[in-house]
C-alpha cells in the first residue's frame, strides 16, 4: 500500500496528486493567485472612484463597461474563487484528515478531480475577460433579464452567445459549484467514517465540526441555484424565457433562488474561519474552549436558520411586505447563535494565560473587526432602515467588514498558526507583526469612512458620481480618495506577507514539532507530516481542548495522551 506513493514522478507527486496535503496546498495557492487578480481589479476601480476620468497607473483609462465588469468579477472572485477554496477547501483538505487522525480523505481521486474542475472554472472565468464584449458587468448577483440578454444580443449565432462574457461566467460558477460539491461529499464522508480510534463526536475539534456544517449548508442550499444557473444559461444561448417577463418567466424567481444559496454561502465562508478562531484562541490563552458543546449546537442552529433568512437581500425588490417581516425576524434571530459563538471565544480569554503570538493577534483583530461588521448588520437586518441603506456604500462597508476579516484575517490567522506544520519552518514574527498592523490600519482606512458615504446616500456600482449633486460634493469625494490610498496601502502590505512566506519557506528556521504547545492531533505528527500523516496511528483519549488541566503538570495535554500523569 504505502510504497505506492513513494517513488512518483513530478507530475503525480505535485500536480495530479491525490494526497490531501498537496491538494490543500494547491487550493491555497490557487486561491492566493485569484486573490491577486481580485485585488488588482479592486485597485483599478477604486482608483477610478477616487480620481474619476484619470488614467490609471498599470491599467489605463477605465470605461463604464469595464468598470461594471471589474466590480462584478471582483465580487465573484473574492467569494467563489478566494473565500471558498481557501477557507473551505484548503483548510478542509489539509486539516480534516490530519486532525481526526486519518491518513487521507475518503475518496482521494474525487478530491483530485474536485481541484482540477475548480482550476478549469478559474480559467473559464479569466477567459471571460478576453471574449468580444468583455466580462459580464451586471453585479455578482447576475440578476436577469440583464444577464439573460445573450440570445437577443447575439441572435442568431449560438456560438457567440455561448462564448459571451455572461455565459462563460455562468459556466464558471456552475463548474465551481460542482467542484465544491465534490469536496463537500469528501469532507462529510471522511469525517463520519475515517476518524481515529476514540475520536468520538464530542472530541472532534471545533474547526472540523464547522467545516462539515459549512459543507452541509452548502450542499443543501446550492441545489436550486445549480438548476437555476442551467436555466439562465439556456435563456442566454437558446432563447428560452425562464426569466424573461415578456415570455412568462419571472426575474424574481432568480433573485429568490440566488439568495437562497447566496445567503447561506456567507455562513459557508464564515464557519471555517470561526473554526480557525476556535483552535487559536484556546491554544494561546492556555484554557479550554468555553462551552465547547454549546458552540457546536449554536453552529447547528445557525445552519438551520441560515436557510430561512435569504430574502433580507430583497427587502426593496418588491417582495410581499408580510414576508419581509418574517425574514426580518429570521435575520435578527440568526444574530443570536453567532453572537453566542463570539462571546464564547471572548469568555475563553478570561482567566487564561494569554500569549500574544502572531496567530492570536490575527484572531483578536478578526473578532474586533467582525464586531463592527456584525453590529452594522443590525441596521440592515431591520427591513425599514434597509429601504434607505440598501445598495448604498453602507452595505458595501458592512459586508467588507464581515467578509474581509472572515476571509483574509481568518486565512492569515490559520496560515501563521499552521505554517510550521505545513512546512516545518518558522515564519519571521517581526515581519508578520508589520503585516498585521499595516493590514489592520489600512483596512479600517478603506472601509470605515465609506459608512458615512453610504449614509449620505451614495449608491454602489457607479463609475462616475458627477451626475449626483448630493454625493459628489465634499467631504465624500475626499473620503473616496482616502479609501483609495488606504486600499493601495492594503495591497502593498500584502507583499510583506509574500516576502515572508517565500523567504521563510526557503531558508526559515526549522520549527519544532509542536511550537505552540497545542493538544490537537495534527501537532503530534511530524512537521511537515509525511505521506500517511501518522506512524503509528494515534488513539484518542480525550477532548480537543484539555489545557491547564488541574491534575496535569504541563499546561496542555494532547488528545492522544491516555493518562495525565
Amino acid at each position, binding site marked *: 500500500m504505502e510504497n505506492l506513493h513513494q517513488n512518483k514522478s513530478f507530475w503525480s507527486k505535485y500536480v495530479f496528486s491525490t494526497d490531501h496535503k498537496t491538494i490543500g496546498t494547491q487550493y491555497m495557492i490557487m486561491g492566493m493567485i485569484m486573490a491577486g487578480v481580485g485585488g488588482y481589479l479592486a485597485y483599478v476601480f477604486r482608483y477610478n472612484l477616487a480620481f474619476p476620468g484619470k488614467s490609471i497607473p498599470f491599467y489605463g483609462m477605465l470605461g463604464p463597461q469595464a468598470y461594471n465588469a471589474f466590480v462584478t468579477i471582483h465580487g465573484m472572485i473574492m467569494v467563489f474563487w478566494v473565500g471558498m477554496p481557501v477557507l473551505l477547501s484548503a483548510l478542509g483538505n489539509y486539516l480534516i484528515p490530519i486532525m481526526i487522525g486519518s491518513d487521507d480523505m475518503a475518496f482521494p481521486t474525487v478530491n483530485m478531480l474536485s481541484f482540477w474542475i475548480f482550476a478549469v472554472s478559474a480559467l473559464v472565468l479569466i477567459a471571460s475577460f478576453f471574449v468580444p464584449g468583455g466580462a459580464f458587468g451586471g453585479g455578482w448577483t447576475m440578476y436577469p433579464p440583464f444577464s439573460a440578454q445573450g440570445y437577443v444580443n447575439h441572435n442568431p449565432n449560438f456560438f457567440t452567445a455561448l462564448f459571451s462574457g455572461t455565459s462563460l461566467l455562468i459556466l464558471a460558477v456552475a463548474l465551481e459549484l460542482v467542484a465544491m460539491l465534490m469536496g463537500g461529499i469528501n469532507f462529510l464522508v471522511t469525517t463520519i467514517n475515517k476518524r481515529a480510534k476514540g475520536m468520538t463526536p464530542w472530541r472532534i475539534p471545533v474547526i472540523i465540526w464547522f467545516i462539515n456544517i459549512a459543507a452541509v449548508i452548502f450542499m443543501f442550499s446550492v441545489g436550486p441555484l445549480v438548476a437555476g444557473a442551467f436555466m439562465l444559461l439556456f435563456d442566454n444561448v437558446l432563447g428560452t424565457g*425562464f426569466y424573461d417577463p415578456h415570455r412568462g418567466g419571472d426575474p424574481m424567481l432568480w433573485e429568490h433562488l440566488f439568495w437562497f444559496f447566496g445567503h447561506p454561502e456567507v455562513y459557508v465562508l464564515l464557519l471555517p474561519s470561526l473554526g480557525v478562531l476556535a483552535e487559536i484562541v484556546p491554544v494561546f490563552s492556555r484554557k479550554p474552549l468555553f462551552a465547547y458543546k454549546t458552540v457546536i449546537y449554536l453552529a447547528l442552529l445557525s445552519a438551520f436558520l441560515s436557510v430561512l433568512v435569504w430574502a433580507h437581500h430583497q427587502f426593496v425588490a418588491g417582495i410581499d411586505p408580510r414576508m419581509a417581516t418574517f425574514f426580518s425576524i429570521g435575520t435578527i434571530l440568526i444574530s443570536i447563535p453567532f453572537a453566542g459563538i463570539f462571546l464564547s471565544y471572548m469568555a475563553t480569554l478570561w482567566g487564561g494565560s494569554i500569549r500574544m503570538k502572531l496567530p492570536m493577534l490575527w484572531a483578536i483583530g478578526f473578532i474586533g473587526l467582525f464586531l463592527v461588521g456584525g453590529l452594522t448588520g443590525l441596521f440592515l437586518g431591520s427591513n425599514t432602515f434597509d429601504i434607505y441603506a440598501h445598495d448604498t456604500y453602507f452595505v458595501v462597508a458592512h459586508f467588507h467588514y464581515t467578509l474581509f476579516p472572515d476571509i483574509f484575517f481568518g486565512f492569515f490567522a490559520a496560515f501563521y498558526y499552521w505554517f510550521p506544520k505545513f512546512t516545518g519552518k518558522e515564519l519571521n514574527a517581526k515581519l508578520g507583526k508589520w503585516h498585521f498592523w499595516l493590514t489592520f490600519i489600512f483596512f479600517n482606512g478603506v472601509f470605515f469612512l465609506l459608512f458615512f458615504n453610504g449614509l449620505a446616500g451614495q449608491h454602489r456600482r457607479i463609475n462616475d458620481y458627477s451626475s449626483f449633486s448630493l454625493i459628489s460634493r465634499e467631504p465624500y469625494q475626499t473620503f473616496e480618495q482616502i479609501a483609495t490610498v488606504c486600499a493601495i496601502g492594503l495591497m502593498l502590505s500584502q507583499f510583506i506577507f509574500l516576502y515572508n512566506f517565500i523567504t521563510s519557506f526557503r531558508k526559515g528556521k526549522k520549527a519544532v514539532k509542536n511550537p505552540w504547545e497545542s493538544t490537537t492531533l495534527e501537532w503530534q505528527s511530524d512537521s511537515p507530516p509525511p505521506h500517511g500523516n501518522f506512524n*503509528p496511528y494515534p488513539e484518542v483519549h480525550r477532548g480537543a481542548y484539555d489545557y491547564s488541566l488541574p491534575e496535569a503538570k504541563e499546561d496542555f495535554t494532547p488528545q492522544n495522551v491516555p493518562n495525565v500523569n
Partner: protein
Amino acid sequence: METQQNHLTIPIIKIPQGRLGMWVLIAGELVIFGGLICFYLLNRIRYPHWGDMAAHTNTFIGALNTVVLLVSSYTVVRAHQAALKMDVAKVRLWLSCTLLGGILFLVDKSIEYAHEISEGFTFTSPKLVAAGDHVGSLFWSYYYIMTGLHGAHVLAGMTVMLIILIQTRKGKNMHRVELAGMYWHMVDLIWIFLFPLLYIAK
C-alpha cells in the same frame, strides 16, 4: 502497516464508505431536482393555462416509462441481492435486465420527444411564441429541462451500470452493484414525482 490499519480505526457510524458517499450525493441531487420541481409547481399554480399544455403530453408513454423504471428498479435490487450471495452469473443477468430497462426508457422518451417536436412543441416552441402563447412555450421549456435533466441522469446511471457490468465479469467490485443500484433508485424516485406533475395533473 496493515495491522495498524486494521485495528486502529473504526467507523463510529457504521456504514460503508461508498454507501455513505452515495447517500450524500443523492441528498445533493435531490435538492437540485427539488428546486426544479419547486419552480415548476410555482409556475403551474401561477398559470392555469399550463393545464392545457400538459394535455399534449402522452400519458400512455409516460405510464409505460414509469412501469419500465419501476421494473428496472426491481431488477437492480435483485442484482444487489445476488451480489450479497456473490452469485456472479445472476448479478450480470439482473444488471443486463436493468440496462435493458434504461434503454427501453430512453427509446420511449425519444419517441415521445419526436412526437412532441413534430407537433411544434420544442425547447423554445417558436410556433407557440409566434401565436403569442408565451406562457405555453414556457411550459415546454420547463418540460424539456426537467425531463432532459432526468434523462441525463438515466444515461449517467446506465454508464455506471455498464462499467460495473464489465468489472463484475471476474467477480470484482461486487459492492459497487449496490451503489449503482442506489443511484438508479434515485432516478426512479425523481421520475415518480415528475410523472404526475407533467403527465397526469392536467
